[in-house]
């Protein structure tokens, strides 16, 4: 299968290792990954902040980059960006009165998958250790990000994949379904409330005794990780793609400053 990678702006600029892990997983399964170079961002930040006029060229750029026959499906390692592509692009085009863009956005949206959705529903991955050689001998907890959970209805796809990684010890996160408080510009416009939500999330994570918190959205992980870092907790965050890409031969570097027994670093 020919798979177009939508890296998303934050992964491209801040967490390239997540996109590289995504490429590694898909190639390991024998698929061809292409990277449409015109891509930039899904426009979610503009839309969710009410800047529809400014969102239009961003949405148009994404549709232009991905509106080709040159791939079978598109994938992004981000629930919220995929939700934006699937649920917001048509709305932005409609609101700005661009019917042609609206129609093309619908086509692109239908072909776009979140990574765990693609792995589980399309590529039939049920056992990461077996099918991807995933190995990650660490104690991990998991935060399901809101947009993936509620807009894409990802269910336990990400968690189930993580549980099937070789050597991993998964511990349950209390109040896992509560928002971490990121919410894009919410974290700046309502910094106090956002911080209070983050503090509760961080406390729940630290209470599990996990070495790190895994998730499927770089932005939420940056938020939680930023809080954990400021508190000097020593607990890091990591995208689930990086955990799936980690193998016995090439173990992923664990963020945070915990010294780990049995780590092959």
């Amino acid at each position, binding site marked *: 299968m020919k798979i177009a990678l939508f890296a998303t702006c934050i992964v491209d600029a801040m967490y*390239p290792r997540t996109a*590289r892990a995504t490429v590694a997983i898909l190639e390991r399964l024998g698929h061809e990954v292409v990277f449409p170079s015109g891509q930039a961002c899904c426009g979610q930040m503009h839309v*969710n902040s009410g800047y529809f006029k400014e969102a239009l060229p961003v949405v148009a750029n994404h549709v232009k980059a991905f509106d080709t026959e040159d791939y079978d499906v598109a994938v992004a390692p981000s629930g919220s960006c995929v939700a934006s592509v699937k649920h917001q692009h048509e709305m932005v085009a409609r609101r700005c009165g661009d019917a042609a863009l609206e129609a093309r956005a619908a086509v692109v949206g239908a072909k776009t998958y979140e990574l765990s959705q693609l792995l589980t529903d399309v590529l039939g991955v049920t056992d990461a250790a077996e099918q991807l050689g995933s190995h990650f001998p660490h104690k991990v907890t998991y935060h399901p990000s809101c947009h993936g959970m509620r807009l894409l209805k990802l269910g336990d796809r990400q968690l189930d994949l993580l549980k099937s990684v070789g050597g991993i010890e998964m511990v349950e996160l209390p109040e896992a379904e509560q928002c971490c408080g990121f919410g894009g510009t919410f974290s700046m*416009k309502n910094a106090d409330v956002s911080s209070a939500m983050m503090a509760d999330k961080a406390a729940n994570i630290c209470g599990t005794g996990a070495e790190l918190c895994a998730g499927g959205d770089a932005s939420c992980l940056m938020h939680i990780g930023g809080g954990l*870092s400021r508190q000097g907790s020593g607990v890091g965050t990591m995208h689930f793609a*990086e955990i799936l890409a980690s193998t016995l031969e090439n173990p992923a570097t664990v963020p945070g400053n915990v010294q780990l027994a049995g780590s092959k670093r």
Partner: protein
Amino acid sequence: MSNTFLGMPTLPVFGHGNLNATEKFPKAAHRELGDAQLRANLGHATHTIRDKRLKVVAELPDWEDMRDAGSAIKNATMARLPALLEQFEANFTARGGIIHWARDAQEANEIVTGLIRATGETEVVKVKSMATQEIGLNEYLEEQGIAAFETDLAELIVQLDHDKPSHILVPAIHKNRRQIREIFLREMADVDPALTDEPARLAEAARKHLRKKFLTAKVAVSGANFGLADTGTLTVVESEGNGRMCLTLPETLITVMGIEKLLPSFADLEVFMQLLPRSSTGERMNPYTSLWTGVTPGDGPQNVHLVLLDNGRSAALADEMGRTALNCIRCSACMNVCPVYERTGGHAYGSTYPGPIGAILSPLLTGIKSEENSSLPYASSLCGACYDACPVKINIPEILVHLRGEDVDSKRAKIKVPSQMDLMMKGAQWAFSDGAHLNLLEKGLPLGKLAAGRDKVIKKLPGIAAGWTQSRDIPAPPTQSFRQWWDKEHVAPAAVERSQDGSRNTEGEQA
């Protein structure tokens, strides 16, 4: 189309009263967040009630179908609201009731005051009602020399404490029983000084206090949960029986109801009597459901009035994207699951309607140009828990985003100097609307390292981004973006050995 002016207003009439916040949400939230007792009370109460709700909802295999039905009935109601209101009026009037139409809070208050004055009474008992909270009826009546006594236990607590409700269903959710005992001892003239903070003792004290009022009151003021157009029937759904007392004992009953509370037919009630109690109190069925259709000679109130309140509802109905907010049945499920509400409480929202539904309903009723209310659509992380919980499937996150757009457009037209947020969005538009632009920007990423400390994190950002760094670090950016790596080093898998995959996975960018 005719050019004749038919006297119809062209501008929407927005709502007034207790709908307008007096300060912006972030400021109010900052203050409320500082109240540790409030947060503890709220956290406990919302957790209890949402667990109860989840349990009883899970009992119904057709819950999702029921939500769809509720949503469809409400959409059908809004699609022909004027006709249904006329049908309701005809049926209510035919049964001996009297209808009054109120354009806004002021008119509604004047009508109710006039009706009470006509009875010669200066005291009324009240059934908990959001509509009368919205128009500030109690305060208005007080100014006119009429005392209104709340009979719902939680409303009574709030009223005795000279406080404001902070939740639609549980107005005193922010108080614990120790605080309630103190309020009763301080404010109830006839209370037993040996009162303890046991819930049963507190309820007993309130019951004794209220009984005298029930037995002497000649006039009652209520709201209504539903109005049924095909029979002209009104409904009040409650838990304590105080409503039943107010609706049956007095001679005069005055109900204030928002025009959106209609259902087309009596049969529709079947759906909502299942949706409402489960969503609001986590009960399979509410203890008391009172229905009344006009006047029955010799039984119950003989003077039955209904004030139909607009107060911005027509304006909300005219908003194609926002109008489903009027489908709200005031169950409060959205606030019980909202992480923002859970931490700030209802007072931070300023309006009678707090939480996620309030964040859309208040600005829809008052208009987004209403300065303080324009901050309400931003009082959400858009996590979507409210939409999942809503029994009539109001897509609250979508309407929040729609209203943010209205706010940005309204400010754009009004203010000529762009804000920091405007400039940031403009800059991001440039970067995000072309892969080449983003690439150019990413070439500057190594510079980000200069801003980072020895521990490779950024601890302080300027301007509006400072909000982030008040409690969170930002990792130092990588030396190379993904697209730069792809352009330089990625070779199609066919050309390399499969075993090299992993080596591309972890190196480099964290240095």
